[in-house]
């Protein structure tokens, strides 16, 4: 017996080691529905190994960054001035674009509030350096240099400005493991931007993200952008995921899988952001940005418009520097205001002002909901005698002309409900700078469809 063990000692050791590992594997592998978190012993082993490997990685990585920083920050500064100019021009263009998007965002917020939809906004992120990978083809994970000490916990979304990267999995003291969206065991709720088809994103065996188990649909085309749907309670809604590369049949059925080209460059990641705090309310900074966006865009437009230097532009009446509303009518004697060196562009005054003209209607915030514009103008205007001409005030009812009611511009009625719908907006009461008379009327769709004017309002610029 003794000779058997001594003769086969090596093989017995091999069998023992293999058996021990097989048993260990069996205890770790769970059914798909159970939590993927590790038990204490396994987690301890992972923590030891990561603690052993990550410090040298951190040192090597920071050393490499230092060398690269010397090159990029001190030596390679060619064309920086030209690049700065280009970026400035791009910034101006983006501000204009931002104004339009801000309006859409406000509208979206109102609609979401109406529908009771709760969107997640990003409150706080933690920037982290990617210091390593798993080093194997089978496991698409990253290691970042932030951990529990930095407020990171498991299942936090990890993103870059280009798109999502993955989520945190195992979090240690100073290091975290990030499971990339290209891994087979990852998952994210996504939606296609154009077709609005929702699906679940997984990685495939070759490390490419794909939306799985979709019904065949001819509308899905290559190049269609895909964003997060927010349904997985990890990734906030609307973050870029990638673009459709191609549609392939699912090998196990009649469904199809949609292969994506990830928006974030998953193969060359250096810095990432971990979303550590997200909530339902829009952050104050974002609200302020939205409020400022339109104002900045107006200023840029005012600088660029030819009417700014147009000598034929209508004269500015003294005392009308507030919101840009032309409170006087055509009867007011024009008086040039030489104290304003750069008068903002003003819309032409109406040739035949009536009760539907912007110059004859009381400010929107003074109108009473449920009353017609004409009838509301009288009581509202009573409190503010300056904006409404006396001749208009005396008209208690709409004029009996048969042609005008079809072209009723109902825009002033919209802001009646607007301050209740979007109280955080702070632009309306401020308006400190002279602006074009285009009032901020973001919700014209709230007026009844039957009263929507087919013609343009008289405020349009010439």
């Amino acid at each position, binding site marked *: 017996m003794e000779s058997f063990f001594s003769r086969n000692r090596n093989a017995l050791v*091999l069998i023992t080691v*293999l058996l021990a*590992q*097989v048993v260990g*594997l069996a205890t770790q592998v769970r059914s798909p529905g159970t939590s993927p978190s590790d038990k204490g012993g396994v987690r301890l082993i992972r923590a030891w190994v990561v603690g052993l*490997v990550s410090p040298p990685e951190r040192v090597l990585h920071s050393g490499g960054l230092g060398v690269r920083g010397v090159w990029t920050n001190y030596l390679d500064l060619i064309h920086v001035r030209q690049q700065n100019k280009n970026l400035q021009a791009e910034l101006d263009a983006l501000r204009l674009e931002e104004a339009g998007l801000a309006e859409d965002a406000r509208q979206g917020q109102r609609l979401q509030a109406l529908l009771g939809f709760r969107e997640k906004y990003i409150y706080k992120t933690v920037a982290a350096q990617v210091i390593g990978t798993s*080093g194997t083809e*089978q496991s698409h994970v*990253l290691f970042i240099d932030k951990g529990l000490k930095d407020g990171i916990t498991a299942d936090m979304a990890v993103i870059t400005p280009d798109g999502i990267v993955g989520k945190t999995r195992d979090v240690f003291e100073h290091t975290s*493991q990030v499971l990339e969206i290209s891994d087979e065991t990852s998952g994210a709720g996504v939606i296609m931007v154009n077709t609005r088809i929702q699906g679940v994103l997984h990685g495939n065996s070759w490390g490419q993200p794909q939306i799985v188990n979709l019904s065949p649909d001819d509308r899905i085309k290559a190049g269609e952008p895909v964003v997060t749907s927010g349904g997985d309670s990890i990734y906030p809604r609307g973050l870029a995921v990638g673009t459709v590369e191609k549609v392939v049949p699912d090998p196990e059925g009649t469904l199809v899988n949609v292969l994506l080209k990830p928006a974030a460059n998953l193969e060359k990641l250096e810095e990432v952001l971990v979303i550590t705090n997200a909530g339902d309310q829009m952050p104050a900074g974002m609200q302020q940005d939205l409020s400022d966006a339109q104002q900045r865009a107006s200023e840029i437009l005012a600088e660029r418009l030819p009417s700014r230097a147009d000598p034929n532009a209508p004269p500015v009446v003294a005392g009308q520097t507030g919101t840009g509303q032309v409170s006087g009518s055509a009867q007011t004697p024009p008086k040039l205001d030489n104290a304003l060196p750069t008068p903002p562009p003003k819309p032409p005054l109406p040739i035949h002002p009536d009760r539907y003209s912007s110059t004859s209607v009381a400010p929107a915030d003074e109108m009473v909901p449920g009353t017609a514009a004409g009838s509301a103008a009288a009581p509202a205007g009573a409190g503010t005698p300056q904006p409404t001409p006396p001749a208009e005030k005396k008209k208690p009812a709409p004029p009996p002309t048969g042609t005008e009611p079809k072209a009723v511009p109902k825009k002033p009625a919209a802001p009646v409900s607007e301050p209740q719908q979007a109280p955080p907006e702070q632009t309306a009461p401020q308006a400190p700078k002279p602006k074009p008379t285009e009032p901020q009327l973001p919700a014209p769709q709230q007026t009844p469809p039957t009263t929507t004017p087919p013609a343009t309002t008289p405020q349009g610029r010439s």
Partner: protein
Amino acid sequence: MPLMASSRHEVGTRSYPFLIYVLTPVLALGLQSLLSLHFTFFDVIDLPLLVTIYYGITKREPMSATVVGAAIGIAQDALTHHALGIFGIAKSVVGYIAASLGVRVDTENHGTRLMLTFAFTLVQTAVLFLLQRHMLGQPVAWHWVHELIKAAVNALVGVVLFALLDQTRRRE
């Protein structure tokens, strides 16, 4: 090409400073993790496997090579999100075979090392495939050409790496 060991010198074990035994696996794991981040193609190279093979063919003790292979493999598993033991089992097998062959084969020869590393890389791939596909039931991508290229690259890198590690050998 002399494949079989023909002298006592060829079958004798070698000794290395203790620090080498500790540092080499750690360095292999760290470099593997770091370089894969910056060079995507580095995924095909398996430095921990090469260290396991080198330990087996130079130490020529199947028992210790099995244990060392298991330890390196489990450490490699710990850096992934998979269950611990997949690489551990594969490297235990590789370490055992490498040490068993090291007694019979002249492992000083670069050509022999090239062929052994090529074969051991394929052995590890086969064990991993069996474990993941048939034991764990996970989908595994399999492409013969890719696996052969991977084995060839590892064999070439292994020859260079083994020559470097030979320099740390303790002179007797």
